[in-house]
């Protein structure tokens, strides 16, 4: 006998799983379960890795990425670098259901979300601002993701410029340190 319905979730995100299970237990669809489950994490800012107020970029801004895929139709909705909208996976669901496209990105994805009725608001919080200030002012922009630029990105903040070179310099690719509080 198949073990369905069922839901699995990465990391320790139990509240999201509980919500998804509630949807499934009531006879809801897998698509609804994934959207509503992940939305819990967006609201609760799971480990600072989901939703608003986490993982600021070099400018201190939080942007959101989300994907939802329907295994019945192979339809996909996705958003990337979504600015100033908190409900990323629900916007992705709107891309899936209200467009013939699969993937919208950046400022124009925000415009789509606003058109679909989502509220535009800052994703920065006091905590994310403090994180960025510490990284920028106390840690001199370390770590960062730049290579082959000047000033030396292992010591200084930007703005950076490409090092003009007459021969190819190979530099080791330093990977992102992944832990509970920093991951895609």
């Amino acid at each position, binding site marked *: 006998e198949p073990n*369905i319905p069922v839901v699995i979730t*990465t990391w320790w995100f139990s509240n999201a799983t509980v919500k998804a299970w509630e949807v499934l237990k009531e006879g809801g669809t897998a698509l609804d379960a994934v959207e509503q489950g*992940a939305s819990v994490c967006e609201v609760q800012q799971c480990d600072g890795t989901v939703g608003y107020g986490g993982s600021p*970029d070099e400018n201190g801004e939080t942007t959101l990425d989300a994907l939802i895929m329907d295994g019945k139709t192979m339809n996909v909705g996705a958003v990337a*670098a979504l600015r100033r909208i908190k409900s990323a996976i629900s916007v992705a669901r709107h891309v899936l259901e209200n467009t013939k496209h699969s993937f919208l990105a950046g400022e124009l994805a925000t415009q789509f979300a606003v058109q679909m009725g989502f509220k535009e608001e800052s994703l920065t919080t006091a905590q994310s601002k403090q994180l960025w200030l510490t990284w920028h002012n106390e840690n001199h922009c370390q770590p960062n993701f730049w290579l082959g630029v000047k000033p030396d990105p292992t010591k200084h903040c930007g703005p950076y410029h490409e090092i003009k070179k007459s021969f190819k310099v190979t530099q080791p690719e330093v*990977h992102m340190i992944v*832990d509970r509080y920093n991951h895609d």
Partner: protein
Amino acid sequence: TIGMVAVDSNGDVAAGTSTNGAKYKIPGRVGDSPIPGAGAYADNEVGGAAATGDGDIMLRFLPSFLAVEEMRRGASPTEAAQTAVKRIAAHYPDFMGAVIALTKTGQYGAACHGIPTFPFVVQDKTRNVFEIITVKC
């Protein structure tokens, strides 16, 4: 990032992710999470999978797609997730990440690399409450 895979009472499969990405990324950078086949993938004929970790590396290997395709070829969810993780580790031994996988009949598994352990949450009809399962990497 949260990655999630679900199968409903009708046997329909869905998968998804939501994330705010890597800390201190270069503005405009996008990781694996919103890329179909990388962050997550679903196919009613097989099941679904989701990935988490270093998105700059992981999106180059479409690990969720690979895990689903491995299950299509008869691998268990754990074996499928291991294959997807090992494919990346063969090229980037230092990468950090994990894959979870679920079949359309409700079997599940996970694999990870570069971190000591990786937890994932399961809820199905055999449990009164959710269970957190930890796999060693």
